[in-house]
Structure formats: C-alpha cells, structure tokens
C-alpha cells in the first residue's frame, strides 16, 4: 500500500511536470522548433535579452502585480478587520457574498463585465483611451481582494479577543492597538494573501484580455498573441527563468518554515518537560529543577513577523514608487507615443538580426525631427479583431493596417481620417496606378497600400499525390481526411467554398451562402483544425498536409519546414486577391506623426526590408525594381509573388472581398456559428 501510494504520487507529479519539462528542454534547442530537438544551445536566451517587446511585457507584468498586490493587501486587510467586527449579521453576510463573487464567477464574465463598466464610464467622461494601465490595475485589485480577505479573516477569528482589549486597557489608542497587537498576529495571513494576490495578478490572462488597452501589454497577453503564431523557444527561455526563480524562492521559504517548525517542536518538547517537572515537583514536594528554558522560540516567532513586516513594507514602498513614477510619466509627456496596430508577423522587427523598422523610425525622429518618439506596436489576428477593438471605442491607435474590405467598412462607418498627402511625399514616388483608385478607396483619400497578394493552397508533397493538386478540390479530398486545415474565420472559410464553385463571393443571395455552408459541412469531417496563424506551425512540422493561406506566408513556411516535410504551393483557378493598406483612424491622437510613419514605411530601404522580411508582394514600385530585392528573394519566390502576364486590376475587381451589407454580415455570423456547432 505504502509503495503503491508512492508510485501514484510520482505518476501524478510526472503528469504535472511533463509539459514544464518539455518547455525547459526545448528552451535549449538550437533549432527554432518547439517539438523537434536539434541540439543544445543558449541561442534563445541571448535572443530573449534582445527582445524588447518581451522584456517590456515582463516589466509591465511585474509593475502591475506589485501595485495591485500592495493596494489589495491594504484594502483587504482593513476590510477583514472591519468585517470581523461587524455586528449586523446580514451586513457581514452580504459583504462576504459580494466579496466572493469574483472568485465564484468565471473569469470571462468578470472580465467582460469590467470591460462594459470601463467603456461606459470612459464614454461618459469623454476619454479617448478607455482601457489603459489604470483599468487593468482596478481589475487586478478587484479579483485579488477576495484572496486577501479570505486569508486574513480567519487570523482575526483565531486571535485571542482579550488581546486588543488588554492593549486598550493599557492605554493604547485603537490605531496603536491595531498596529502593535493585532497586526503582528494576523501578519502570516496578510503575507499569504499578498503573495496570492501577486501570483494571481502575474498569471492572469482572461480578465486582462478583456480589460487591457493598447499601451500596456502584460506577459500573459503577449504570450497569448504569440501562441497564435509560430512560437519561438524564446518564450520557453523566459518561462524557464521564471520557473527557476519561483522554485528557488519557494524552496527558501520552505526551508525557513521547516527550521522554524523544528524550533517550534523543540519549544513544545521543552514545555512538556517543564510541565512534567512541575507535576513531579508537586507530587514529590521537592523544588523543581529545570535545566534550561529556551527563549529562542519566542524570539523566532517575533523575528519572523519582523521579517514579514519588512517584506510587506518593501512591497508597499515599491508600489508607491511605481505609482508615483506612473503619475509623473502621465503628466510629463516628454516622449510621444505612436500606437501602431498591425497583423502578427507583418513587419521587420529586428528578430535574428533583421532590420528593426520601429527602432529605425524612432531613431529617424530623434535625429531628423528632434522628437522623442516611442512606437507602441500591437498586433491583431484578423480584420474582425481590429474592427472589434476600434468600434469598442476603448483604445486609440495612430496607424492601422487593415485589408481592403475592412477599409471600405471603416471608411463608410466614419472610423477613418482623410490623409494629408503633403506629409507623405513618398506616395507619389512609389505607388503606381495599379494600386490607386481601387474599389475600397476610389478617391485615394484614406489609405496607402502596404502589401498585396493572393490566397493559394499549400500541401506537403511528401504525402500528397501530385495528381490530386491544382484545384480547391484538394481541400475536400477524402483521401486526406483528418489532415486538412481550414480558416478559423468566417469570411475566408466561406471564401474557399465560393471559389471552389466559382460563385460570386460578394453575393447577397442567401441561398448561395446556404449552399456554401453545405459545402463546408461536407468538408468538416475531413478537417483537423480551424486555424489562423497556427497554420505556420502545423504545416511546417507536418502536423497537417493541406491548407489554404497567403502566398507570402507559404514562403516563410518554406524556410522553417521540418526535414521530412516538402511544402508546395499553387493558385487554384479562382482565388482571393487582397490589398492591405495603412490608414489613420479617427481616434488617432497624433495624425502628423502617423503620416510621418506612413511616409517612413514607404521609403525605399524600409519598404525593401519589410518586403523581404514578411515575403508578401509589395505594391511599392521601387521594391520590385530593386536588384537587391530580386536577388535576396530568389526567382522561385518572385514568380510565386508576382505571376507573369497578370492583370492585377482586372483580377482584383473580380475576386476581392467586398464589405457585405449589415444583414448579410449577421447572416454570415449565424451560418458560421452553425458550422462550428453542427
């Protein structure tokens, strides 16, 4: 039995630690995969310390966790004191019920409800930025409070009631009695509560997801957006470091506690000896003899509470410093922040020695314009994501890069500002007529094209027969059941069914959409997963054999494919063409600087660096004509991105997505939910 229980405990621990072991092992991978181990290297640790976004998110997480833990500890401890002394039972019960709500309610509801409140109040106050560090701080304090109260309250209950009374009788003021007598007694509870508040805040994703603004990204949120794409072992490296720090901290506290316990046991033994000695002396009538009464135990418990006081004081001071700095930084706006909102993996960001667009722009502003600018770069994973953020009126961006149909929608709903092309002189030099006057912006008022491209089908030629390729039918081929991935996005997923049957993707005829749904439902049993950017990882590792995605992304996958995978690509007879373009939303706080940024993106060097990094076709004339670009990309890639004898204008008009009328959008949403459930 004993042995069995040991084996069982070991098995559960293996289960709990297996994923963490994987994470630690792969953080030392010399390859860039998180599932195939190539060899030992510290490469990703070096990358980590160069990754400004990740370090910044870590810093933000720590700032938030320390401030929210300190504030909730103070409010929560006072609250526990008050609740403990409440006379009215109904009051105490209702306060406790309200306190417990955030613990009992699913996080997603707590998050959404707070978001509603912040947006509503922000609108009332006419704030441009409704979600920010402050809203996150409030949210984190809110869900941490119950943990503090529930840890402190029992300590008040356990405390000897006569102690504070004695203190008062001896002339203490109530405040003195609280700080000198009660606080030391409840300190262990306060400490546990604070630690829990700290870790809850550090680890929280769901509530932060709904209450965070653009200018304050915490680590879990950054990790979330990263796991939607290709995860690089850099995150593993960071997690490993965090894991080791926590492990060491826990082991130290555990050892301290153990040694304390030893002393406590010693004290108990001595007390017992003392008692038996007393009893003996009473029986025998002889004077009692006790070797030595240790006072160390008293000192220790006192010393521990002193330690805790110190720790709590340090945390509070840190929190005060941080909040002062924040307040200071809010009022002294010496640096200008430019909020840029773009697709994931859609800019050359300095990773692995590439050109760091945003850093270069900051440098340009400093050297040429004499301005201290900080680019705050955020990513979204679909046009609908972007729309949700913009229409919630909760955040403000200066530059956004949506796709064509979304630009049409945003412009028609009044979310976009007209650009002042005097501030964007590079436009004239670089954007040819091919990319002007397209349907989504017929008068060239709102947008400057950034990339364009076509959707195609990607397959693993090592397992997919060449004869089956060439058309959309491949994605409906039962031979490859369980190996196909489809878009996790209504418009694109329905698009594949439309193009397969050569239907008009912008039709308002509901019966055609119903037919498309039938097509998708027929395909569903063959699907492995609905994906957006997760497709990179799934295709590269051979996890899926067939999927449809953008030509530029295929080129990126090609660079990272596993040894046993042979990715190939083709354009089916009908397929989607798109243009992604830079725009300035009405909520922008710094329009001139945003135009400066757009102009910078159009400068030849930047445009070439970005086109090479993201591998999408560039509408910039000087990119295509650049010899360096042609050479770096290679002939194969160029022939995929820029097919010969290709009339862009004509093809585009026939095959692009257009903004659907509202009732069609709603219908599409209903169909999509139907597809996802049935």
């Amino acid at each position, binding site marked *: 039995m004993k042995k069995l*229980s040991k084996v*069982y*405990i070991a098995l*559960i*621990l293996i289960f*709990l630690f297996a*994923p*963490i072991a*994987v994470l630690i092992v792969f953080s030392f991978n010399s390859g860039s995969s998180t*599932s195939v181990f190539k060899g030992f290297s510290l490469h990703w640790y070096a990358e980590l310390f160069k990754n400004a976004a990740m370090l910044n998110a870590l810093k933000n997480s720590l700032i938030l966790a320390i401030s929210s833990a300190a504030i909730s500890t103070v409010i929560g401890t*006072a609250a526990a004191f*008050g609740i403990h*002394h409440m006379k009215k039972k109904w009051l105490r019960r209702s*306060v406790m019920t*309200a*306190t417990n*709500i955030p613990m*009992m*309610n*699913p*996080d997603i*509801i*707590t998050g*959404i*409800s*707070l978001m*509603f409140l912040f947006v509503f109040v922000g609108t009332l106050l006419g704030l441009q930025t409704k979600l920010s560090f402050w809203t996150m701080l409030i949210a984190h*304090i809110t869900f941490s*409070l119950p943990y503090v*109260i*529930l840890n402190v309250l*029992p300590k008040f209950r356990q405390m000897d009631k006569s102690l504070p009374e004695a203190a*008062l009788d001896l002339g203490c*003021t*109530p*405040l003195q009695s609280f700080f000198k007598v009660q606080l030391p007694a409840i300190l262990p509870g306060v400490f546990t509560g604070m630690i*829990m508040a700290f*870790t809850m805040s550090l*680890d929280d994703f*769901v509530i932060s997801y*709904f209450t965070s603004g653009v200018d304050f990204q915490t680590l*879990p949120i950054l*990790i979330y957006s990263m796991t939607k794409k290709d*995860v690089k072992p850099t*995150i593993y490296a960071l997690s490993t470091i*965090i*894991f080791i720090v926590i492990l060491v901290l826990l082991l130290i506290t*555990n050892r301290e*506690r*153990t040694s304390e*316990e030893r002393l406590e046991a010693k004290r108990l033994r001595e007390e017992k000896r003392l008692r038996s000695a007393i009893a003996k002396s009473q029986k025998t009538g002889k004077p009692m003899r006790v070797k030595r009464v240790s006072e160390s135990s008293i000192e220790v418990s006192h010393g521990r509470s002193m330690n805790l006081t110190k720790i709590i004081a340090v945390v509070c001071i840190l929190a005060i410093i941080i909040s002062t700095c924040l307040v200071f930084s809010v009022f002294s706006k010496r640096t200008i922040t430019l909020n840029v909102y773009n697709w994931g993996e859609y800019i050359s960001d300095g990773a692995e020695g590439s050109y760091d667009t945003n850093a270069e722009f900051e440098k340009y502003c400093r050297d040429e314009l004499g301005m201290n600018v900080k680019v705050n770069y955020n990513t979204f994973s679909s046009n*609908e994501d972007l729309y*949700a953020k913009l229409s919630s009126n909760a955040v403000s961006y200066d530059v956004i890069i949506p796709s064509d149909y979304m630009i049409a929608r945003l412009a028609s709903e009044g979310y976009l500002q007209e650009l002042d092309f005097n501030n964007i002189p590079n436009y004239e030099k670089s954007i040819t007529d091919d990319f002007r006057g397209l349907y989504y912006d017929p008068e060239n008022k709102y947008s400057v094209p950034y990339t364009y491209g076509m959707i195609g089908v990607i397959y693993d030629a090592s397992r997919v027969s060449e004869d089956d390729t060439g058309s959309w039918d491949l994605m409906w081929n039962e031979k490859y059941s*369980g190996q196909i991935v489809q878009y996790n996005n209504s418009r694109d997923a329905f698009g594949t069914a439309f193009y397969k049957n050569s239907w008009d993707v912008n039709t308002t005829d509901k019966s055609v959409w119903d037919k498309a749904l039938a097509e998708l439902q027929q395909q569903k049993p063959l699907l*492995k*997963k609905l994906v957006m950017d997760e497709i990179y990882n799934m295709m590269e590792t051979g*996890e899926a054999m067939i999927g449809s995605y953008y030509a530029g992304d295929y080129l990126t996958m090609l660079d990272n494919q596993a040894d046993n995978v042979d990715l190939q690509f083709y354009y089916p007879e009908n397929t989607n063409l798109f243009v992604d373009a830079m725009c300035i939303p009405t909520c922008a706080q710094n329009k001139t600087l945003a135009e400066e940024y757009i102009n910078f993106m159009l400068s030849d060097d930047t445009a070439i660096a970005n086109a090479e990094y993201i591998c999408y076709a560039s509408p910039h004339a000087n990119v295509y004509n650049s010899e360096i670009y042609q050479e770096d990309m290679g002939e194969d890639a160029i022939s995929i991105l820029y097919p010969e004898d290709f009339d862009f204008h004509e093809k585009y008009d026939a095959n692009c997505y257009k903004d659907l009328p509202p009732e069609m959008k709603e219908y599409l*949403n209903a169909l999509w*939910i139907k597809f996802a*459930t049935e």
Partner: protein
Amino acid sequence: MTSVPKKSKVRRSLLQRYAAAPHIAWAILFIIAPLIFVAYYAFTDTVDGSVVFSIENLKTFFTPTYLKIFSRSVGLALISTVICLLLGYPIAYFISRTKPKTQRLLILLIMLPMWMNFIIRTYSISELIKDTGIINSFLGKIGIPQMHIYGKEGAVVLGMVYDYLPYMILPIYSVMAKLDYRLVEAAGDLGCNSFKVMTKVIFPLSRSGVISGITMVFVPSISTFYISQKLGGPSTLLIGDVIEQSYNASNYHLAAALSFVLMVILLIGLAVVNKYTDDDSGGMLI
C-alpha cells in the same frame, strides 16, 4: 477613571465600523456595478444606433445550436471534474498521511505548476500530444501505435484536467490535513473494514474540501476558451469560445446575454451546492 474605557470604546467602534468601507465601496463599484452592466447589455440591443430593450439575444441561448454548445461545455467540464476528483482525492489522502516535512514539499510541488503561465503550459501540452508531437514521435520510434487525440474532445479534457488538477488537490488536502486521525483508528477498532472507514468516516469528513474542489475545477472548465482553442478542433467549440467570439465580433449584446445566462445557471448551481455544505469556512484554497 471609568470614562476612559468608555470613550475608547466609542472611538474603537468608529475605526471598526469604517475599516471595511473602502472595500465595500470598491465592491459596489467594481463587482456589483459591472454585473448590472452585463444585465443591461443582455436585455438590450442596438438598433440603428440606439439602444432598445430586447430579449432576442437571451433567446439565442435557448436555440438548438447554442444549447448544443452549452451541453457540450457542461459535459466536458463534468468529465474533467470527475477525472480531477478521481485523480486528486487519492493523492490528497496519500499526501496527508506522509510526514509533515514531506507533506510540505509535495504540496509545494503540486502548487509549483500553478505559478507557471497557464497559456504556455497549455501550449506545451499541444506540443506533446500533436500527431507529430513529442509523445507520438517517440511512440513511432519504438513501434507502438500512435495516439491521435489532438483536435478532439479528449485533448480538451486532458487540458482541463492538467490545468485544474491542483485546484482539486489543494482544498481536499487542506481538509484532510486537519482531519483527526484518531477517528479513523476508532472506526477501525469498532470493526469497520477499510472500505467502510473510507466511506463512513474519511469521505464525509472531507466533504467540504471535495465540494470546493469541484467548484474550483468546474467553473473555470465550463467557461474556458483558450484550452479549447489550443487543443480542440473544429467540433469542440465551447460556450466560452462563443462568448469570446461574439466579443471579438463586436456583438456585445450577445456576449452579455450568453454571459448572463451562464452566470445565472452557475449561481443557481453554486447556491444548491452551498446548501448542502453548512461549513462556511469551507476548504477554500489553502
């Protein structure tokens, strides 16, 4: 002489009376008020830019499509909770029977994974169980048939069990650790066999821990959206996913309506559960 304690009594009650005030204000502003907003958005709809009263979105919850999603969520959450209980109860019992020093170390080890970011842990699971993942490539090498659970409901359950198992173990353990073992010995002396000791003594005494363990696993399981997104496939959509999707599709009224119904159902459930546990100290986490 007598007036001094009297005076201090008045002052003391002042401090005691107002110590909880900031928290009460906070709770009203940031716990109660937001829930009112959820109800407000749930019972309204935006028509042509103006907000009108409507129960259309609430009705959506009760259409077959959404009921199916909801019952799937309940089903998967229940399965995960039961598995967590079956795995967690014995380990909580075994740990509580070890030496205090070992106990503390083991509990520390159980809690340690909770301190790691749950997103990265869930991602790491997907890397383990994918068809081309670590486990399967290992199985492939030694010639054992591979397991294909990635993208299926089994993977979602695995993810939930993995992420929330510590939430089951800890409250049960904290009750077990306080359990008076002399009662077990007495039952044995009075002729109970070990099975009876378990069902008649240990289990009833640890009930409060079990119940808070069940709530702490069930509530996050039923409302999760990341686990099903990351480990699930085309047919594992959960109610949390739909709420997140409607939030992302800017359909706040629908998101609110779904959240509202989910919340009401859970609150009723919790109230029923709490009725059967009179122990108000519970076995709350640690």
